[in-house]
């Protein structure tokens, strides 16, 4: 029991750092680059993706013995698309402003390979508890990555953070940071940083062992 809990905890943690979906697996690049030009948009997209990932993993794990292997991908897509449509309707009903902000990108969650990837690689092979821990870990890892990119881009590209101006009027925003190239620059820079830290840790571990 104790060991299981420990393993589940590991499953959750790995999504945050060791197997971070954006910085390590480089998955879900469409929303990562497209909607991270402000911190609020990043958070809203991360929350919507989390919802879809969590409930898809729950269902796929529950039904893993029922779904025939030959039609599993089709079934996963049906499950994922259902939750994406539900989150779209829920956002439109509950938070219309955020729904308006995210535009077409909510519907595009369905093609985020992070979600299908986790169903195929994890939820379909593990018990519900572990599958949910994996979904939470990956969802949070995705949220952290999106937020990091969103914060950098909004501060430099708009001179604000969460729509609150942080520089004086003398600050000239770097428009390019909220344009598509800014997404690539920020992602490239953060990938570099992330890999440098990971490399340093690997070297340090090699020396100590």
């Amino acid at each position: 029991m104790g060991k299981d809990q420990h393993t589940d905890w590991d499953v959750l943690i790995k999504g945050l750092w060791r197997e971070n979906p954006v910085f390590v697996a480089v998955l879900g690049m469409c929303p990562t680059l497209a909607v991270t030009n402000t911190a609020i948009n990043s958070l809203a997209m991360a929350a919507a993706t989390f919802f879809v990932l969590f409930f898809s993993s729950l269902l796929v794990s529950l039904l893993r013995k029922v779904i025939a292997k030959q039609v599993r991908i089709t079934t996963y897509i049906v499950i994922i698309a259902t939750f994406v449509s539900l989150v779209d309707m829920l956002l439109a009903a509950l938070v219309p402003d955020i729904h308006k902000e995210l535009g077409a990108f909510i519907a595009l969650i369905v093609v985020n390979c992070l979600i299908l990837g986790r169903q195929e690689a994890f939820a379909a092979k593990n018990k519900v508890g572990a599958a949910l821990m994996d979904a939470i870990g990956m969802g949070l890892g995705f949220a952290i990555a999106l937020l990091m990119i969103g914060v950098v881009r909004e501060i430099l590209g708009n001179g604000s953070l969460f729509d609150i101006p942080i520089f004086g009027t003398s600050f000239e925003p770097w428009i390019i940071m909220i344009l598509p190239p800014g997404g690539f620059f920020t992602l490239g820079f953060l990938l570099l940083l992330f890999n440098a830290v990971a490399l340093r840790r690997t070297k340090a571990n090699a020396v100590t062992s």
Partner: protein
Amino acid sequence: MMTEDQRSITPPGTPEMPPEPGPARLILTLGLAGFFSGLLLVSGFVLTRPVIERNKAEALKAAVYQVLEGCVTFEQLIWDGQVLRQGASEGEDIAPVYIGFGKEGQVLGFAITSEEPGFQDIIKAIYGYDPALDQIIGMEILESKETPGLGDKIFKDARFKTNFEALAVLPEIVSVKFGEKANPHEVEAITGATISSKAVTRLLQKGMTEWREPIRSFVLTLKGEGTSGSHEKS
């Protein structure tokens, strides 16, 4: 018979592969997935539709008040194929035109909804039109799926919105680069969101092409009836 190679890649104690499921099982799996998906979607749709419709109606109401300053009540006009008129529809089309009244019941102007394809999807907007000045006096975006952070500036950028505070309708509403506005009928586009800005300009022009004349005739009819004496802006 297994060859030596096949034996070497199969770890000892591996259970035998389960038999292939028949077509009926596959169809059943997909059928059930589709059925439950449909059930969830329809339930979600039925539960959220009234709230979404209410949100849209409230957004429209707020937008009419926003584009017609001082408006306290408004009414949607009817298009009978030839003229605009007030009252209930008797089989005629409901026009995307709203007449806004001020505190004393005077006509403040008209709010018109119009739409055009933008960068991602259809942009739907509502704008205020004052026939006395022949100007657009305000604009609000109702629906847009433009790129967050870029195209969405058509409803978030306060500077872009100032384009529509007193925009001349004649000779034609056109879009110009930012900083190059020289005439009252020009709209300064947003840097980095030219397609979305042009779509807004087009939808305004489209709305005016379609409704400017009917609205002007409607105003003349109102004046003829002596009910719009206070329409002329002071």
